[in-house]
């Protein structure tokens, strides 16, 4: 199966290599006999947007959780260029250091806003909380930053004190996006960020995400089963099937000239409208 991986050669001519922001090496996660993901390796550079695509059960979310420090892998390494220690295996850090790094340098946008928001405190408090966690105690500054971010994600700032449950799904997702960007992360994970939304709401949220990612120069790892989302957001793709990476490459190359049988099936299964 490993020999089956369709990947572009890793050698390159005429250009220098900058240090990676994230390096994943031979990452494997099994649940007993069941393989979540196996032998996944890749590097991510600052400002690069990587899409992970594949059908349900292909191991996308397991991979994302293992990379993002939520799920210790069975084997392999996840190294991140931390501001305090440089390129470091995140599972080699002690728990407080790892959590601090996750708080300071990462964001994680969940598919379901309920998983990423605290439903009992106001939308504004949800957005401001990461600043508080980083030690900011100046109420005025935090409120100003919160209002600025609510505006950036195009939410009505007069509703800053409303609870998340009083917002629509699309608005909750915007709160979640603001909450995950306000502290200036260098890497943001997104798990089907537009998954549960109506198409028109989804489209507007995608426009917003794309704009923010470009303006802030964010590195992003986005999991999606939607090829249109992948094409719109990602610079390059990883295609997964049964826990294995079956193909990687430039987004438009993988989508327009897929090499692996499964990628071909995946791309040809998209309905045209």
């Amino acid at each position: 199966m490993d020999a089956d991986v369709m990947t572009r050669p890793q050698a390159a001519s005429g250009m220098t290599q900058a240090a990676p922001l994230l390096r994943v090496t031979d990452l494997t996660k099994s649940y007993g006999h069941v393989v979540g993901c196996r032998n996944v390796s890749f590097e991510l550079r600052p400002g690069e947007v990587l899409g992970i695509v594949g059908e349900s059960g292909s191991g996308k979310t397991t991979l994302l959780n293992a990379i993002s420090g939520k799920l210790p892998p069975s084997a392999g390494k996840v190294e991140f260029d931390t501001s305090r220690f440089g390129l470091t295996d995140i599972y080699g850090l002690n728990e407080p250091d790892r959590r601090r790094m996750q708080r300071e340098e990462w964001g994680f946008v969940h598919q379901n806003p309920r998983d990423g928001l605290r439903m009992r405190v106001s939308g504004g408090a949800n957005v401001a909380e990461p600043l508080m966690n980083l030690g900011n105690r100046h109420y005025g500054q935090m409120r100003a930053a919160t209002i600025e971010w609510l505006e950036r994600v195009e939410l009505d700032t007069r509703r800053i004190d409303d609870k998340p449950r009083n917002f629509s799904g699309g608005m909750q997702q915007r709160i979640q996006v603001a909450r995950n960007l306000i502290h200036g992360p260098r890497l943001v994970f997104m798990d089907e960020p537009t998954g549960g939304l109506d198409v028109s709401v989804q489209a507007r949220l995608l426009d917003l995400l794309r704009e923010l990612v470009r303006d802030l120069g964010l590195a992003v790892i986005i999991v999606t089963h939607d090829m249109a989302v992948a094409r719109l957001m990602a610079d390059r793709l990883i295609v997964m099937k049964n826990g294995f990476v079956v193909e990687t490459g430039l987004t438009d190359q993988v989508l327009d000239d897929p090499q692996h049988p499964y990628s071909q099936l995946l791309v040809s299964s998209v309905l045209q409208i």
Partner: protein
Amino acid sequence: MSTLPLIVVEDLAKTFVLHNADSASIPVFERLSLEVSPGECVVLAGESGVGKSTLMRSIYGNYLPTQGSVRVLHDGAYVDITQALPHQVLDVRRRTLGYVSQFLRVIPRISTLQLIMEPLLENGVSTEEAQDRAETLLSALRLPRAHWELPPATFSGGEQQRVNIARSFIRNYPVMLLDEPTASLDAENRAIVVTLIQQALARGAAMIGIFHDHDVRDAVATRLFGVSEFKAAA
């Protein structure tokens, strides 16, 4: 100015394998070599289906060639598009290698003016200058001003085509691939595009083009290249 060729294609082959159709194998071309120097516009010749667009897309990195190399002169060094990492290909496309297809494929819901400014903004040009250049080009291409603030999805074929052309010609790309850029244009607009192409060539751009319109072809081609000579055996 450098006299090195800007594109060097060597021993290129492309075969499509359709795994979900009994692994049908569709050979397109093989042992194809081609060099394009500054100021040259090589027009791909051959009947429909011979692989002209496939060659263009292989050069752009949109298709993955089965064999061979496609080197593009980028920042004074050759980058092999078939071997380069995704971020390198994207950098080459951002600054060196432009592509005009027959179809406008852009992010929906974004205004025409914004779409055309985008390639400049990505390259660090100021908003004012980008807007100025975008408006100049849209005027030259005679796209009605009332359309500028609208997304191009509802435009006519010819209007979309001109948005496409503006998006590529606004950047003075050193290398351009033109896949029937004049396909759905009327005579006057074709003439405007011919002028844009000639200006780019005079500036030293290297181009590879597909033109079914003979007048356009004769006006811009410095040389014809028969893709059918490299037809791969089925």
